[in-house]
């Protein structure tokens, strides 16, 4: 049987990959995809803990899965708004590269 730690480790590696994507890539679309990876890493550890904590009825703890549902909803809304901002930016500047968007940089 697979212990809980394996799932947590997969979740941690997934989060680190997403974090590295946000830090290293300069394409805004890839940065948004990496944000999705990080949110999904959090979902994976929540579901693993939900299965790990079996309540007296012999069922997984469904509170964590409700939380995952909320996270998925927020992530979908975030992607929609982020991509709308991206399209507006592309109309104004014809670029999706974060290096070209430096008007507000100190």
């Amino acid at each position, binding site marked *: 049987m697979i212990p809980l730690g*394996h799932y947590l480790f997969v979740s*941690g590696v997934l989060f*680190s990959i997403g974090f590295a994507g946000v830090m290293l890539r300069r394409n805004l679309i890839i940065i948004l995809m990496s944000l999705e990876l990080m949110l999904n890493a959090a979902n994976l550890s929540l579901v693993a803990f939900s299965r*790990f904590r079996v309540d007296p009825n012999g069922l997984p703890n469904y509170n964590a899965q409700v939380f995952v549902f909320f996270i998925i909803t927020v992530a979908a809304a975030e992607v929609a708004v982020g991509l709308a901002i991206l399209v507006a930016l592309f109309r104004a500047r014809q670029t999706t590269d974060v290096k070209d968007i430096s008007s507000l940089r100190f």
Partner: protein
Amino acid sequence: MPPFLFWFFASLTLIFAAAVVINRNPVASALSLVVSFLGLAALFVSLDAYFVGIIQVLVYAGAVMVLFLFIIMLLNLQAEERRRTNWIAAAGGGSVALILLIEIALTIGRFEAARKTFPPISGSTTDDVRKIGAALFRNYNLPFQIIGVLVLVATIGVVLLSKRQPR
């Protein structure tokens, strides 16, 4: 679930997640993200979370990825041209991610419960949609309605943002 299926789907998820970050072509990145999400959905199903697994496929691999691909093709984004990389900044960002990974691994290693396997479940999990729905509408009714308002605000915001401004 047999252990080799866990290893198969976990490596599928992680390899294609890395491919998302490594690929230069945004379309290839988006398609790798689909495969990564499908592997993650299989991991959810292996944890007896059928509803979350199905939602993962429907919302992420379906709706969100179509949105990504649609935007990539609408903007006609090509593979980005190679620019001069700022090696110091890249090394800094990569090392921060690496330090984060090491810290997570150390924390899991010190976590006692992480070495235990999952306890068996005696109840039926095939009707988990009903149980999650009951929890959603009883215990989490207010957060559920706040999420509804959030989705409404996001919809209005997207319409406002993508409307062409009169010049």
